[in-house]
């Protein structure tokens, strides 16, 4: 125990036999981890000319989870420039060297809208998009209706699927430098959010021309986007951490998002399902994304109030997903740099 309080000053350090020592030797024992006397801190190292109390070097006090969470959040905030740079890099790299550049992020959803328009106009011919009427009586073309749902869905889907490999794809960074690891999946979701911003601008423009002006309900958009964003971040944290230990996730996530897409009223309306298949309706209502997609369409193109109950359920799910994702990520991240 005396060792624990050894104050090291080079000129006065004496070996046990009383001779003046020119060198400091740490004990260098092969104590088993957990041995008590080591915990007491047989700290004998150090400083040539400085005088230090060993007590300063003891293990840090255990913190409560609230404080840990706040500390993690502060760390994340401190790394915001890095996050911004990662998002910027993501967007730049994805489209650099291609002829259309940034326009690609718009072309893809527009082409998909064109494809589905063709299918539902000429092949299937079902009124899948029959939804609430607009108060001003304007008809909403299927293409606009679908593009609206697709844009908010894409925010979620591209964010989650891109983040899945965000950690395993950054091994070169993990091994060389420390930063809060959660920056990686969060940056993936943020770059999906930027792409969504472009799509949303186009959507508003098209809606103004093809349908009509929005109503006051459009002010709900930030709330809805926040719910989707939180869900995506929660899932992104969870999946990116799991993928480190189980690489199958990368392949699995594609089909998983396909199933989820068809389980969400993006291409069809909730009203259509309620009429055609009431049994499936309950299943759809259990989907955390249903409320967000339906509400987003209601407030942006249909000028109707959001589906509040479903949206609230989605928000609750988002919180649960975020907590789960954060917990799993925080627990597994310490070994990322060794495994990746």
């Amino acid at each position, binding site marked *: 125990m005396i060792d624990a309080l050894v104050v090291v000053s080079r000129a006065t350090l004496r070996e046990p036999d009383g001779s003046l020592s020119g060198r*400091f030797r*740490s004990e260098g024992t092969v*104590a088993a981890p957990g041995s008590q006397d080591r915990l007491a801190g047989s700290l004998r190292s150090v*400083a*040539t000319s400085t005088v230090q109390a060993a007590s300063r070097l*003891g293990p840090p006090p255990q913190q409560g989870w609230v404080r840990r969470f706040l500390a993690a959040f502060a760390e994340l905030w401190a790394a915001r*420039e890095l996050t911004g740079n990662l998002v910027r890099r993501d967007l730049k790299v994805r489209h650099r060297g291609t002829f259309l550049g940034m326009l690609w992020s718009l072309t893809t959803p527009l082409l998909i809208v064109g494809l589905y328009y063709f299918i539902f106009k000429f092949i299937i011919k079902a009124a899948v998009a029959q939804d609430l009427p607009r108060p001003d009586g304007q008809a909403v073309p299927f293409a606009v209706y679908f593009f609206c749902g697709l844009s908010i869905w894409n925010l979620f889907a591209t964010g989650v699927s891109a983040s899945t490999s965000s950690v395993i794809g950054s091994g070169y960074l993990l091994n060389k430098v420390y930063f809060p690891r959660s920056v990686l999946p969060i940056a993936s979701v943020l770059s999906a959010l930027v792409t969504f911003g472009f799509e949303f601008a186009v959507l508003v423009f098209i809606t103004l021309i093809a349908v009509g002006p929005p109503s006051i309900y459009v002010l709900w958009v930030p709330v809805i986007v926040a719910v989707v964003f939180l869900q995506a971040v929660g899932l992104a944290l969870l999946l990116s951490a799991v993928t480190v230990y189980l690489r199958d996730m990368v392949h699995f996530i594609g089909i998983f998002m396909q199933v989820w897409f068809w389980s969400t009223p993006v291409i069809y309306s909730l009203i259509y399902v309620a009429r055609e298949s009431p049994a499936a309706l309950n299943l759809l209502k259990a989907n955390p994304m249903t409320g967000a997609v339906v509400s987003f369409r209601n407030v942006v193109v249909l000028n109707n109030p959001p589906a509040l109950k479903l949206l609230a359920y989605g928000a609750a799910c988002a919180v649960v997903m975020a907590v789960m994702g954060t917990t799993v990520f925080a627990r597994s991240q310490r070994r990322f740099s060794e495994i990746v």
Partner: protein
Amino acid sequence: MGVAIACHDVWKSYRIYHQRSHTLKEKVLSRRNVFEEFWALRGIDLAVPEGATMGIIGANGSGKSTLLKTMARILTPNKGSVMVNGSVSPLLELGTGFHPELTGRENVFMACSVLGQKRRDVEDRYDQISAFAEIESFMDIPVKNYSSGMYARLAFAVAISVEPEILIIDEVLSVGDESFQIRCYQRLEELRAQGRTIVLVSHSLPTISGMCTEAAWVDHGEIREVGTTDDVVAGYVAAVHNEAAEFTEQAEQHPAGKRYGSGQAEITDVSFVDGDGQEVSSFRTGDPLTMRLAYRAHAVDDELVCGIGVLRAENLAYLFGQNTVQAGVPLPRNEGTVEFTLPSLPLLKGEYVVNVVLHDRSGRHIYDCHDRKYWFSVVENSTMPIEGGMMHVTGEWSAWTSPVSA
């Protein structure tokens, strides 16, 4: 002064997987991963004082890099704690955070933010960085189109532009050409003068001796010694040489050793002895040094002559050589011991190798030669002024004012 980095009883193990299951199929089929646990760090207690430049030395696989990565928070210890006071930038390789598709300019900002630098600070230093890399006109093209030299210069410029409170450097920085290294050391010197803490891992003892005020010697995951650089380096060198000496003994039994000659006489033992008569392998400049050589002659018909030669280890520069003929010392015919004593060792800090040879009077007929088989090291003598080169020579300086020409 406070402590910049405090490692308290740090243990770190790696799992060496014989078969790692990464896929679901493998996970299901083989329930358990087969692995061995390897303890890279075993209870490290180490404090780096604020403003110190600490070198970490040790053999390959001793845990130096693991310790460094633990300090940089890249690795989390299994047990124990690492406390760091201040911002840390680890420089473990050049070009961390670079992306080939991004331009030079974008990569500067990217890499600096990865290293924990603020954008505003980087903006201030941007011109300096591009000027340092000497590629101002190429800053707006993607680095994938750079030559490897341009890439390395930019990466290097970024690396040395960082200004954290604590800098953690692996020896990767010692790659690159000489001008890089010189600038690197100048920069480290600047940072040290600003009172920043530097932790440096290197294999090169001269680098450690030259740069660091303090050193820690890591051996098999434990701290073997901490203290002033000269002390620790001397201890380390002595230990390495002891191991090498054992190795030499083994090598002696093999005919393939660096040994040749007719065998009419043989050198049976060579040792280096200090002023107290102790056999050692590390000396200080100015200390007495005696080389002691035992021999046995079997069938020598001519006069027996013993010679020694001393060379600088790193470049094998031949420093001096003497023999018993020149000195007029006859050797006993059958068996004996020869000593060569330097009352004041003139060699400066470094490693030296020694040739010993037995031959006839003409020097044409070699009985036994041990070529570059023995070595000793010289460490700085703190009581003597610092000199350049390999040798201490006595000389006198004088100076006077020149008469003003009319």
